């Protein structure tokens, strides 16, 4: 398990610089631009955000080492810390496992006498209750009521065996004798009480001694004493808690580096995250929160939703309809839908003469048309974007752009509906008295892009500027396809395992699953409890027969082989 964790940790550690390297390669031509005040705010946001990949001095991304460089020049301190953490982690893990085992053996809820749970079916094959559903305590009470005290004592004794077995103080099996159980008991008070019970049971059951009401009363009182002695064993020292806390802390340190390549998530400092935009909005006075998938209560509080699409197929129709309903419920609501880059397709618009391009940023190609947001029903799937000749696209945000919806040109004014930079643009689409901002090629709003490009900052700043003041902004952090549920709890658990993918639960869950798996190995009856490990033969008869056959074939002398067999058997007999 440890090796596996180390490999996971190593692989996670290697992914980050690799991703950063790739982004660096693709963004080498990024050039600094003179920023206005709004754009400068991004620099301030980045500076205060303590992004490990951001160079405050140069307002740019730090050059990242390649994995090969890392291998040549390992960080000694980091490596030492990691090794130390693992050294601490392993004993802590083992100690915790031991504590879990001990606690599991000791900490069993003592049921009230009247509500004793059924004996485990696998515990023992008791003559009366082969099906495992027999309640011996009830049977004892019933027998006592009809003055059959012998049966009552026998039943109550069997009930005691069941209780001790559930406490894992004894290992109940069909061949277990009372002597054996007594030897297994280590706690003095429990053993003493059980010993008294044993004496009475044997005298009554095997010795045909008379059993009367007094004897049964004493037997039952002794049984209560035994059960009172049992909870003392459940006292768990603080060592387990401390070990758990230490383990959790170490788990976070050792191999559990933060997963920093999540696309669009606002938590963490991922270069592919949206925390810069998150912080920027917060710095502008908005109340910015996160929600995991669509939660009804949060939606009612929200004025603005920022949704980074993380799924290749975009939003499902149900989610789009729900978002539309949400927009129509109250005026002034805003959805900022940030599409993935591949959601914008470059078509070959030969059929549409209006798309003839006279000048653009794709000089060597035909005019591109963008089939934008094919899953978004508020924008026609035939929307096209064209650029007028002479637009200073390379200089930043275009204020002279034209949008065609259903082949009808829409006038896009500066600050009105359209922002263009490089391959990114933003479309404003009103829905009732609310509005949707569709960010095509939305990677421009990711952290690294904001740190890298003045144009992207400009788009983000303009987009943020469209929002009214003091809005409640929610970033949707759910994976893949979020959906709205009427019940918040249902919404949260729409995917019952979604919480497992939220950091740091995802890392803790992996480790605890491993711990749980090991614990189950111990607990499952198929593996047995390690009281009396089954002896296995060290010799395989078939292997010996094969060996003897080979010997005979090899030597061709059956007498010699037979003599060898006899010698071997003699040796085995002596050893046995």
């Amino acid at each position: 398990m440890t090796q596996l964790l180390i490999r996971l940790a190593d692989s996670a550690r290697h992914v980050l610089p690799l991703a950063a390297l790739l982004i660096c390669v693709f963004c080498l031509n990024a050039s600094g631009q003179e920023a206005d005040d709004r754009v400068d705010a991004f620099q301030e946001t980045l500076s205060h955000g303590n992004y490990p990949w951001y160079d405050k001095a140069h307002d740019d991304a730090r050059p990242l080492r390649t994995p090969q460089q890392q291998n040549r020049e390992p960080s000694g301190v980091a490596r030492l810390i990691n090794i130390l953490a693992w050294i601490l982690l392993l004993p802590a893990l083992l100690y915790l496992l031991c504590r879990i085992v001990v606690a599991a053996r000791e900490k069993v809820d003592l049921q009230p006498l009247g509500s004793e749970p059924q004996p485990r079916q696998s515990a023992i094959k008791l003559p009366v209750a082969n099906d495992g559903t027999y309640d011996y305590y009830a049977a004892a009470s019933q027998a006592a009521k009809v003055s059959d005290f012998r049966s009552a004592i026998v039943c109550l004794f069997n009930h005691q065996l069941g209780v001790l077995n559930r406490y894992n103080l004894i290992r109940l099996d069909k061949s277990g004798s009372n002597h054996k159980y007594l030897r297994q008991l280590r706690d003095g008070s429990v053993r003493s009480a059980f010993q008294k019970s044993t004496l009475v049971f044997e005298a009554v059951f095997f010795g045909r001694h008379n059993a009367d009401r007094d004897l049964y009363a004493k037997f039952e009182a002794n049984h209560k004493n035994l059960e009172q002695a049992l909870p003392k064993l459940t006292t768990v020292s603080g060592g387990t808690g401390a070990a758990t806390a230490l383990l959790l802390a170490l788990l976070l340190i050792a191999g559990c580096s933060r997963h920093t390549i999540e696309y669009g998530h606002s938590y963490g400092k991922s270069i592919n995250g949206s925390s810069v935009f998150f912080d920027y909005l917060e710095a502008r006075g908005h109340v910015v929160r996160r929600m995991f998938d669509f939660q009804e209560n949060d939606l009612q509080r929200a004025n603005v939703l920022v949704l980074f699409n993380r799924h290749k197929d975009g939003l499902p129709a149900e989610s789009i309809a729900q978002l539309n309903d949400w927009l129509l419920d109250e005026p002034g609501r805003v959805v900022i839908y940030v599409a993935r880059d591949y959601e914008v397709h470059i078509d070959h618009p030969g059929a549409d003469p209006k798309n003839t391009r006279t000048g653009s940023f794709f000089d060597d190609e035909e005019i591109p048309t963008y089939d934008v947001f094919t899953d978004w029903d508020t924008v026609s799937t035939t929307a096209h974007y064209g650029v007028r000749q002479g637009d200073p696209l390379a200089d930043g945000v275009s204020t002279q752009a034209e949008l065609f919806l259903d082949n009808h040109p829409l006038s896009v004014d500066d600050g009105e509906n359209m922002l263009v930079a490089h391959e990114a643009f933003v479309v404003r689409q009103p829905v009732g008295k609310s509005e949707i901002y569709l960010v095509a090629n939305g990677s421009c709003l990711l952290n690294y892009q904001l740190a890298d490009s003045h144009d992207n900052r400009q788009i983000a700043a303009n987009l943020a500027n469209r929002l009214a003041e003091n809005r409640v902004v929610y970033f949707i952090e759910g994976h893949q396809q979020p959906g709205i549920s009427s019940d918040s709890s249902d919404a949260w658990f729409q995917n019952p395992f979604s919480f497992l993918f939220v950091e740091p639960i995802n890392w803790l869950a992996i480790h605890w699953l491993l711990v749980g798996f090991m614990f189950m190995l111990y607990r499952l009856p198929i593996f047995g409890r390690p009281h009396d490990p089954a002896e296995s033969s060290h010799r395989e008869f078939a292997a010996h027969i094969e060996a003897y056959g080979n010997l005979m074939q090899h030597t061709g002398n059956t007498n010699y082989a037979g003599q060898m067999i006899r010698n071997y058997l003699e040796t085995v007999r002596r050893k046995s």
Partner: protein
Amino acid sequence: MSIPDKSSPLFNETPEMPADTDHDKSSAAAPGDKENDTASGLQQLSRTIDELRTQLHRVFIGQDSLIDGLLIALFCGGHVLIEGVPGLGKTLIAKALSRLVDCKFNRIQFTPDLMPSDITGSHVFNMKTREFQFYPGPVFTNILLADEINRAPAKTHSALLEIMEESHVTLDGKHYEIEPPFFTIATQNPIESEGTYALPEAQLDRFMFKLVIDYPPEADECEILRNAISDNNAPDDVLPDLTPLLDSETTCNVRRCLQDIIVDPKIIEFANAIVRRTRSWKEVYHGASPRAGITLLRGARVPALMAGRDFVTPDDLLDLCLSTLRHRVILTPEAEVEGRTVDGILEDIIQSVEVPRF
């Protein structure tokens, strides 16, 4: 012995923590109104046997199972076969036991040239009386130590085993009774097989127990060494000081008293299940005979008596299973080649039988 009365003092005293072999001596036997004499007699016997064990431990350190096995066989009228390497004190314990029960003791060193008449005795012509006169052999004793019994030829084995079974010697058509109690302690060495005559299974069945002893633990061995070189505790010094606790008659009476120990039908079924299971176990070529079950039940009464109980529990039976059955079963060749031991297989068999609980 009958059922004790209702005022059983089972909870009137707190029992001591049980040892592994006598966990419930203190309070289980409750005297009844009508059977006070018998119950008190059993209690007295229990204390006597306890004292017997204590005294044996004065000269023989450790080996509790050996001492218990010897006492059980003695009181049941059985014989034991002890398998162990030389130098473990087999002769010493036999001597000590004979002193404590105030019995005659003889020792026979079995050799390949030992003849039946060497152990049974023979008729010798008396010149004075002009007739044959019987000169009894060493078997005419109460406790006989047959040392290295497997070194004698088969006919000597047969002679001895007949005596063990019948407790008399037949010579020239005349029967010569051996005074009870007659208790044979036979030994054999497990490590030397050259020049030995292995006892056949049919004859092994005559032995009540086969006790396997090994070297003592380190602490016990240190104590043995300390005692051996001390002035007062050396076995040779302690042996003459042993005071007889029983005599021949009392020993025979104990056998009769054992009949008062209750053996519940469930215990009989339990013993029978174990014995029968040996016959159907796949790794056992030849299982135990009904005599093994009889021996188990007879022997189980003694531990109950030692514990001061008037009834037998499954634990009494289980404690005797290995020593009773290990020489009565024959493993299959496959099991032997696999290196399985008799004791290991017997433990598996015992584990497969359900202890009566309801």
